[in-house]
């Protein structure tokens, strides 16, 4: 080792003092990988044995996928509000009493419908859905503004209200059902179930392997992100931050390629020659049959309601 330069001493603070402004790291950099914590928690959750996930967790993935997807399709077919509301209620009941980790689904089950509701509000106005005005918001006076015709008034219409309510309810029903399926089924069971339902095993294997390495990549991403954060002092400007983010992604891609190459070697080393062989599926139990039957009956009932 050469001799230490004279400034490399704990007492030296000369350069640090040049930073006058308080550290200001932009929100974007700090937030960085906002979603990571939630995803990591969800993945860890999968370590729990199936039996510790409530009765819904014990239902075979094939039965859950079949049953819940059937209801999901039905919710895209019905035209009245009652079956949609019923469906939202049923999904919440499953989430609350099925033994699901409710914290994991509550956000999605509330946030997405809320977003759709916000999006649906303008659809209730007469400018989008014509109808009898129920509540007049303001008088616009009509006439033309540039090329656009300005309506007489801005009002919530009866038809508009119905359209908006149906749109928001339908979205809520769909999202709740999908969330219940996601939260009550461990990835490994889901993939097995999909294979059992006839999804090509190459596709399932890619999806399973993706989920397997998601955790590894997310940790890498976090590591890269933290390394970046620990070195950022003052405001660095948007362009610099963009270059950083891109360098992080590029680095992540390099790592994912390395992992992919090693995995390919590990697979070949254990005899993989391009054909995918998997273990057979378990038997259907009475619980699974009952669940599917229940879903079919419920779906048929919804359809009968309109």
């Amino acid at each position: 080792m050469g001799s230490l330069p004279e400034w490399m001493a704990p007492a030296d603070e000369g350069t640090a003092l040049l930073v006058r402004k308080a550290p200001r790291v932009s929100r974007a950099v700090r937030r960085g990988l906002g979603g990571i914590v939630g995803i990591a928690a969800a993945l860890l959750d999968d370590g729990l044995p199936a039996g510790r996930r409530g009765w819904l967790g014990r239902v075979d993935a094939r039965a859950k996928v079949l049953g819940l997807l059937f209801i999901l399709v039905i919710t895209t077919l019905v035209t009245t509000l009652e079956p949609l509301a019923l469906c939202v209620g049923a999904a919440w009941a499953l989430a609350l009493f099925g033994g699901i980790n409710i914290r994991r689904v509550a956000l999605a089950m509330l946030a997405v419908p809320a977003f759709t509701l916000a999006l649906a509000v303008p659809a209730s106005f007469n400018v989008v859905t014509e109808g009898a005005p129920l509540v007049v918001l303001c008088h616009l006076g009509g006439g033309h503004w540039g090329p656009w015709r300005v309506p007489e008034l801005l009002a919530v219409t009866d038809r508009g209200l119905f359209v908006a309510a149906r749109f928001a309810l339908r979205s809520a029903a769909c999202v709740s059902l999908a969330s219940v399926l996601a939260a009550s089924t461990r990835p490994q069971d889901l993939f097995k179930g999909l294979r059992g339902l006839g999804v090509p095993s190459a596709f399932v294997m890619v999806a399973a392997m993706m989920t397997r390495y998601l955790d590894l990549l997310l940790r890498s991403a976090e590591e890269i992100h933290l390394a970046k954060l620990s070195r950022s002092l003052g405001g660095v400007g948007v362009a610099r931050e963009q270059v950083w983010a891109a360098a992080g992604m590029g680095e992540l891609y390099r790592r994912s390629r390395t992992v992919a190459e090693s995995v390919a070697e590990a697979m070949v080393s254990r005899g993989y020659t391009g054909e995918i062989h998997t273990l057979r599926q378990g038997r259907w139990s009475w619980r699974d049959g009952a669940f599917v039957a229940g879903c079919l009956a419920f779906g048929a009932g919804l359809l009968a309601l309109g």
Partner: protein
Amino acid sequence: MDKVFDFRGVSFAYPGREPSLREATFDVSEGERLAILGANGSGKSTLLHLMDGLYFAQSGDVRAFGQRLTPDAVERPPFGPLFRKRAGFLFQNSDAQLFCPTVEEELAFGPLQMGWKEEEILRRVGDTLGLLGIGHLRDRPPHGLSSGEKKKVALASLLVLSPVVLLLDEPTAGLDPRSQGMLLELLDDLHGRGGLTLVTATHDLELLPHIADRVLILGEDHRIAADLPTERALGDTGLLLSVNLIHAHRHRHGGMVHSHPHQHTRTHDHAHGGGEDHGH
């Protein structure tokens, strides 16, 4: 004894790079415990990949179980599957080796490729998990496991095929001392009771006496610098210095600073005038 591997003048280079192995000639007999020793980048890992039929010699001849290893030979039955069953490769990065959604499927992967009967596969999977004491992990996904557990599962995924030879790439790297000890004990057991051939690539001299009777030393010129019994290799300080496996190292003992060639075997004792003896 039968030859498991037979290398004759084998060279290998990654496309567009300097050769990472030059003119390697050696053989490995059944039941032997061989270590491949070398500094980082000396070609240890390349050598293991060549032995496992993942890379193929650009010049020279690699034979395994009497058969020449070519891209075609390792894929075509009957030799291909048989070779894959006989040779197990424990990768340095356990994460790369554990690519299935659960431990059970991980262990079943190899046997499924061999086309074994499902009942037989499940029986062997159960037995292997029991042998390594990891039955409780059967239903778990590999990513929440500790690094020691991952290593065990990776090893189990090879043992379930009942291999003849295990190729181990830095097997103890990244393991805590307790897991290291367990792994070494297990490998010793497998060799003693099962007659398994072990080939271990490492730069850890401390590991050497536990896993090998014979050492192949790779120099930084990517050639085999020596091929000799373990005790003799560990005693030859000049040789180890020349291939960069040990280095002159400065110590501070109390108020005294001194230098001596340093090798990281488990303990070494030395005395200096006036000070009491101590070990590292």
